[in-house]
């Protein structure tokens, strides 16, 4: 920025479609990735070329080829088929944990903010308490204590999952509850449950949806991690984290561990793309930039 004669920057006005693409292109790509995985998961029996648990010892550790697109693992099972079936567990666990944990946390935080006083204090201290444990370690301890299995791991994750939602919901309700429409609803004589669920929640739901979306990827990551440690699914269930664990020692046969990892990466990135896009879309400041 030197001299008087500065460059005059004329903003290049992009055509609407290009502007849309720049703003929401990644989000659309993310949505496409997620829809693709959802379809693969739902139609796994038709989409998978082989039975995911069919053992073929003679054809073990075969590199990717036209017969086995992503190669075979140490037991000769088709890696591609196992990845497709693995999508079922990952997506199911991700959605279950985030939806149930999110619902519980949101209701708790919303109720706390709306009730105020000692009830709010008690509920939020409880939230802080669970929050002060690193999720993966607490989930690991619980999962190990409950015993290995998908259901138990989901329970362990649920125990540690809700606090962030109750914190966000509380701060959202606090900003909303002092607004005039809430006062109006109280004057009309609606009860607290009606006001909280029917009046405040719809107005505050945007940031919650963003958190849910971003968190779906996170939940899938944590579950895959627990599975990788052997605390997730019972073998021989096809699951992405467990598949990476099975291929961990096989550096020469890189395809066994690499492809399931790429599957995790793609799903998590998909949810991050969509979450970021939603956040921009909901935030008028970001939308106008």
């Amino acid at each position, binding site marked *: *920025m030197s001299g008087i004669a500065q460059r005059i920057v004329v903003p290049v006005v992009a055509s609407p479609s290009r502007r849309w693409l720049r703003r929401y292109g990644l989000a659309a790509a993310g949505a496409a990735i997620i829809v693709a995985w959802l379809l693969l998961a739902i139609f796994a029996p038709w989409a998978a070329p082989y039975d995911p648990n069919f053992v073929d010892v003679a054809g073990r550790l075969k590199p990717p080829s036209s017969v086995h697109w992503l190669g075979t693992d140490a037991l000769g099972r088709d890696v591609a088929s196992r990845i497709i079936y693995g999508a079922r567990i990952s997506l199911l666990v991700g959605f279950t944990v985030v939806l149930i944990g999110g619902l519980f946390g949101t209701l708790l935080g919303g109720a706390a903010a709306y009730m105020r006083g000692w009830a709010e204090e008690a509920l939020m201290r409880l939230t802080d308490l669970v929050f002060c444990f690193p999720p993966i370690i*607490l989930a690991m301890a619980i999962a190990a*204590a409950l015993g290995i299995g998908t259901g138990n791991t989901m329970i362990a994750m649920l125990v540690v999952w809700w606090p962030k939602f109750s914190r966000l919901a509380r701060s959202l309700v606090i900003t909303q509850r002092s607004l005039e429409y809430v006062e109006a609803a109280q004057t009309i004589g609606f009860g607290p449950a009606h006001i909280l669920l029917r009046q405040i929640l719809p107005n505050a739901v945007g940031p919650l949806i963003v958190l849910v979306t971003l968190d779906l990827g996170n939940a899938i990551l944590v579950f895959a991690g627990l599975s990788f*440690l052997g*605390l997730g699914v019972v073998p021989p269930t096809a699951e992405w984290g467990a598949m990476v664990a099975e*291929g961990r020692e096989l550096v020469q046969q890189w395809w066994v561990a690499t492809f399931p*990892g790429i599957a995790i*990466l793609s799903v998590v990135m998909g949810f991050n793309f969509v979450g970021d896009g939603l956040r921009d879309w909901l935030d008028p400041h970001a939308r106008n930039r």
Partner: protein
Amino acid sequence: MIRYVSSRLAMAAVMVVLATLVIFLISNTVPGDPVLTQLGDLAASNPATVAEFRHKWGLDLPLWDRYWIFLSGLAHGDFGVSIVSRRPVLEDIADYAPATVELASVAFLLSLVVGLPLGVMAAVKRDSWIDHVARALSLVGVSAPTFWLAFVMLAVFYGALDVAPGPGRLDPVSFPPARITGLLLIDTALQGDWDTFHDALAHLVLPSIVLAGATLGLITRTTRAAMLEALSQDYVRVAKAKGLRARIVVMGHALPNAMLPVVTLGGLAYANLLAGAVMTETVFSWPGLGRYTFQSAVSVDFPAIMAITAIVAAIFVLVNFLVDLSYALLDPRVVKK
């Protein structure tokens, strides 16, 4: 200020005590049975052996008595005896902690040194190639599974290219230095053993990059967002209008104001690194707390699990407390509220 600090401190102390209660209840009410995992099926079928085992480890006492024993032990610095290693848990932890502290510190340093400038540059040069690189990098960083990233790094740089050393803290042929702090880099430097120092440093490269991945992504993202916010404020426009140089506007005006969210995140991220080390340490055979935690969890070693979770929770509470304090220092308005 003193009132603010003391009330935060009291709160932190209460949280730590409550945290021990939560840990205790979880580890004692769940069905996992250390008797079976420790004695094996054959011995566990003999009632006398089982009773003796339960009595020896105090498993036959009422729940509250056991919590009281646990708590008064903690107050004396006694974290109990590991059922697996049969050593005091605190000794185990003291053995394993330095490896994790060293790894997490290097990883944290790495993510700060790369993440902060990258986030600032991405915000200043918005929509430029550096912004795109920063965003792509941070997105991959937060999306890639740590354990998978660890495998890929090992497979590529150790397996295929052979430019990095394999798993572990040192080569098998290297002699570990006499233990002073347990941090290999510091111990070797103090003793002037530079060959081993280089070996330890080389072994740190891959695991610290892997561990830094997620934190790096978060720090870059947060710095970029906070800087964008700060740069759009009126005081930045005023500073520019006054004719201050761009560098001074960015570094002197915008950056200090953008630091608040980064400090919060940075503090929590460091505490999370200690916890996140579980995956990295497993893949890299790193003899640290993460692996110890995992092994204790798998063998349902209650005293060890309880001690580790209590310590990690205490670290979290402490870090939160420090973050609150730095808030008060960075933003005087916080204390007034």
